[in-house]
């Protein structure tokens, strides 16, 4: 599996650290349910999934990677900073 880092180009999977589903962060004051959902609950699809990968042995960027969990095909890669995952401050 190779991931096309927007800054470094296509790199081996071993350069990246996997964090899990890329979810929009709830507001700091959001209730327990919203945070429980964000931290623990997962849609867990067999198909395209938005994930966070960290280019640990490259440019140190966090990436939002859309990957098919059934075929391992990488469908899209975007800098997480530009993906709007931070949510409300």
């Amino acid at each position, binding site marked *: 599996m190779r991931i096309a880092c927007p800054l470094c180009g296509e790199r081996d*999977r071993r350069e990246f650290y996997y964090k*899990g589903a890329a979810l929009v962060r709830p507001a700091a004051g959001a209730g327990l349910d919203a945070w429980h959902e964000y931290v*623990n609950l*997962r849609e*867990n699809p067999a198909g395209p999934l938005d994930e966070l990968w960290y280019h640990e042995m490259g440019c140190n960027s966090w990436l939002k990677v859309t990957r098919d969990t*059934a075929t391992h095909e990488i469908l899209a890669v975007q800098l997480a900073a530009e993906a709007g995952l931070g949510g409300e401050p």
Partner: protein
Amino acid sequence: MRFSGWRVLKEGLTGNKGWTPHWRDPEPRTEYDVVIIGGGGHGLATAYYLAKEHGITNVAVLEKGYLGGGNVGRNTTIVRANYYLPGNSEFYSHSLKLWEGMEQDLNYNAMMSQRGILNLYHNDGQRDAAVRRGNAIINQGDDAELLSRDQVRELAPFLNFDNNRFPIMGGLMQRRAGTARHDAVAWGYARGADMRGVDLIQNCEVTGIDVENGKVVGVQTARGPIRARKVALAAAGRSGQVAAMAGLTLPIESHVLQAFVSEGLKPIVDHVITFAEGHLYISQSDKGGLVFGSYLDFYSSYAARGNLPMVEHTMESFVAMVPAVSKARLLRSWGGIMDMTPDGSPIIDHSPIDGLYLNCGWCYGGFKATPGSGHVYAHLIATDRPHGAATKLKLDRFRSGHGLMDEEGTGAQHNLH
């Protein structure tokens, strides 16, 4: 049909014409007391204990493929109870005791082999952890022995004792642990459940779960709708998708775990051996193949195959631990889909829907749990109370943060287990 030495002799002398199928192939009825989704080890064991322990025989096990064709058919067959953390510890202790009586109970040869598991340690910190774990195991009533380097060398002289990075200092041995024939475990439970009246329905994918007014009333299947008073999930890696049919989102990510078998070799590995630094575990099958594996691939996957980086890591660890096998050829490898929870421990609990039960989150340790899982799950389904050995395997521990069972101490976070 009961198996016995006399029966084997008789069949041998009469052309083996008297053997019959081990279970019926019934048409699904329109209604059951309990429908179990998933005909793997846990689902079949649950059906067996529902019938045997609780007299509930109006039960169907629905399997989308064939019985035992999921993770119970693709694992490394290790059975053990060397856990440390309360919650897991008593559960696996319960499960190991059931393993020990299972073959007699089922009248089925599951090739249960208590060859012992040896967890090697390589530094002072790991030795201290092994001592602490060993004491905890002894306190829960199971067996553990701390072995010195020389004692380990006597048992397993083929290990690499002079590895500069990971010298073997000793090991923690549990002699009652071992391996069992994974397919036969599924078949034994299937036969036992069938003999007690449970309908085992194969090629019957569940496509919907019917819920009315917060209560489960049945399931939709590829072979028509089936009404049920209680519906019990036992779908392992597909738990997330099955639960989604009832509108539930579980704290589960499905990941792939690879395992490998070498070509058949003469007997060299007499025990199950784990190598702490590389998280490698090996045993030798009765056919002679070395069965081994290491980490998850560590990303969500429904592909029943892995990727090469973990293959490479596993081979490196294996050769570092047992240099003599470096010329052995790899026969095959496979991947199983693991239902990973954030804390690496399972869930056996009610769901928020009345009459719908959850048995999931076995992570990479479902096989050794098979009898225990079935036994305590049947208890929960029959009595609506958790069994004493499974009081901590609760769904709400993730929401509340109380009672998280992070056995490895790596943190209760999805990508760490």
